[in-house]
């Protein structure tokens, strides 16, 4: 069974003459363990697609099934559960809580779960160690470099232990070296069985993925295999 199944997904913003069509009848299926990059120029609708896949936004038309469940009809509370247990995000702008420590940021998705403080600590420490940022655990994230911040964001996605990781231009704010390191981490997560979907306009980033979906004007233009198989 497909993990992500989009059927004729459309998304419109605004009303009447101010309507903007971001997505036009997208059909897309993604299976467990896939590593997909979604490419397209600015305004092509790739971020809107990621938002819909990530249950951050809802489609105007069409059906979105996540692990067999039609999520287009779910309410905020149920969508938040999905965002907490099934999907993790890695953003270009890191999406970290300022004035909170590295530890607290990584633990954020675990706050919502029914697990003890001890378990949270063990899990967070494990991933901080794995990413080589254990020595930063008590440091305020606002004092970290871009590369360190992105590692914290990856650690948070790993600690959440979700099936899907969505990354929106994850290397956008990083230098070449840190960008490459990040992509290696995403590859590593994919090898561990996670389904990774990356939004990018960078061919180099796309080259790390196993499948490349190109979007132009809200429609899928091509869906091809990536370099990394």
């Amino acid at each position, binding site marked *: 069974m497909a993990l992500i199944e989009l059927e004729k997904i459309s998304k419109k913003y605004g009303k009447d003459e101010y309507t903007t069509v971001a997505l036009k009848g997208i059909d897309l299926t993604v299976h467990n363990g896939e590593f997909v990059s979604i490419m397209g120029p600015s305004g092509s609708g790739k*971020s809107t697609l990621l*938002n819909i896949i*990530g249950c*951050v*936004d809802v489609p105007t038309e069409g059906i979105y099934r996540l692990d067999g469940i039609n999520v287009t009809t779910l309410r*905020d*509370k149920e*969508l*938040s*559960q999905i*965002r*907490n*247990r099934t999907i*993790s*995000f890695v*953003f270009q*702008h*890191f*999406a*970290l*809580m*300022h*004035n*909170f420590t590295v530890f*607290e940021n990584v633990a*954020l*998705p675990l*706050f*919502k779960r029914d697990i003890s403080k001890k378990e949270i600590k063990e899990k967070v420490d494990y991933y901080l160690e794995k990413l080589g940022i254990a020595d930063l655990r008590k440091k305020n994230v606002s004092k970290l470099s871009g590369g360190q911040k992105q590692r914290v964001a990856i650690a*948070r996605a790993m600690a*959440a232990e979700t099936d899907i990781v969505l990354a929106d231009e994850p290397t956008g704010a990083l230098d070449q070296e840190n960008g490459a390191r990040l992509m290696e981490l995403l590859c590593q997560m994919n090898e561990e069985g996670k389904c990774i979907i990356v939004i990018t306009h960078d061919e180099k980033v796309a080259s790390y993925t196993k499948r490349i979906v190109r979007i132009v004007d809200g429609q899928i233009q091509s869906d091809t295999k990536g370099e990394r198989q």
Partner: protein
Amino acid sequence: MKYTRIAFSSIVKRKLSILLMALQLVVSFWMINHALITIDTLNYQEKQLFSISKMDEYKTVKLTMPDGDDTQWFAERFRQLETYIKSLPEIQGYGSFNTTSIVPQDFPKWQKYQQRNKQLYAGTRREDDIESSGIIYFDYDIYRLFTKFVVIKGRMLEEADFQKENNDVIPVLVGYDYRDVFRIGDRFKAEAGAGEKNIKVTYEVVGILEKGSRWLSGNDYFVSPADNLDHFFVAPFFPEQREGRPISVAVRLHNTFIQLHSEKQFKDVKVAIMKKGKELGISPVLQTVRKDVDAYQENTRKSNHYALAIGTFFLIVTLIGVISVTISSIRARKYEFGVMMVTGASKRDISFMLIMELFFLIGISAVIGVIVSYLTEVNNDFLGYNIRLEAFTWWLYGKVAIIAIFIILFSAIIPLWNIKKLELRELVEGRE
């Protein structure tokens, strides 16, 4: 809920605006609390008056003399007026009480008496005055008609006890705390009067008062807290104490009452006494206890309404401030909320977090407001005890809590509506 930690952290982050709002809220709660105390104190005072004494709202009349003084001239005229009042057929009883202090001497256990007072007065303004105790002198009618206290040993005072001369042995009741200092039949001496007319009076203990016996304050029978008679003496007036000097008459005037057979007689009695007063050249004023209490309460209510109005005004201004600061904080924290929501927080969690913040801010301010109010009252005990402290009960705290909850809910409505309208898509598109 682990989001509570985020709520507290957010409060700390916005410390200056939170501090200013808290300050405003503390002042508001202080004002509101002040008004609530005043209302409660009025109720407490009235309840105290009628639970401690058998005074009747309409049949008991308070006699005052606005032009009364401590001259011989006035004392003579007032005595004539008293004789006239007692002669009126409508009068069931007439008399006064006076609260003062005496130094008992020449009795077997005076050392134990002083030790007891040392314990009783420790930490009070009387701690250096362990040789003396309070004493309340009564006229027979006041004692007979209005007092409720009883003895646990010996006997109560009788009519004959109130007809003693200065040289007679004066019967006395002693408070419960002195039950093992004095035995029934013990005698002690104490001075009465002053200067050349100073005399030594002999008292004889005839009864021990029940624990917790109370009587109205000599300072103000309604406004001031009642005296606990456990470390007091109770005795009948004798001539020197009642009439000895013009000042004794003037002092008695604070607590002089008339008891009527029927409340319908008040108007006629008032006219008659005022007419007699005019003949004597003095100006008696009569008011039923109900009217006296009402006049005080009315006066107090006016200032109370003013305090309530100011408190409410402050509260409304603060409420607007809390709402606007909370709304702008939501706008400023959109990114933070976005991060929380993409990691699994629902709008309900964010709303809960916001209410926690308001609860913390308003709750703490309410508690500080009550504490400030309490400290103000404690430092305002110029008479040794502030009756307003009696108002600090769970009932008051409950009312403050209800007001605080109302403010929390009211100030949360618009911000929560703002959270409901948040679009997660817009939040995650935000940048640091």
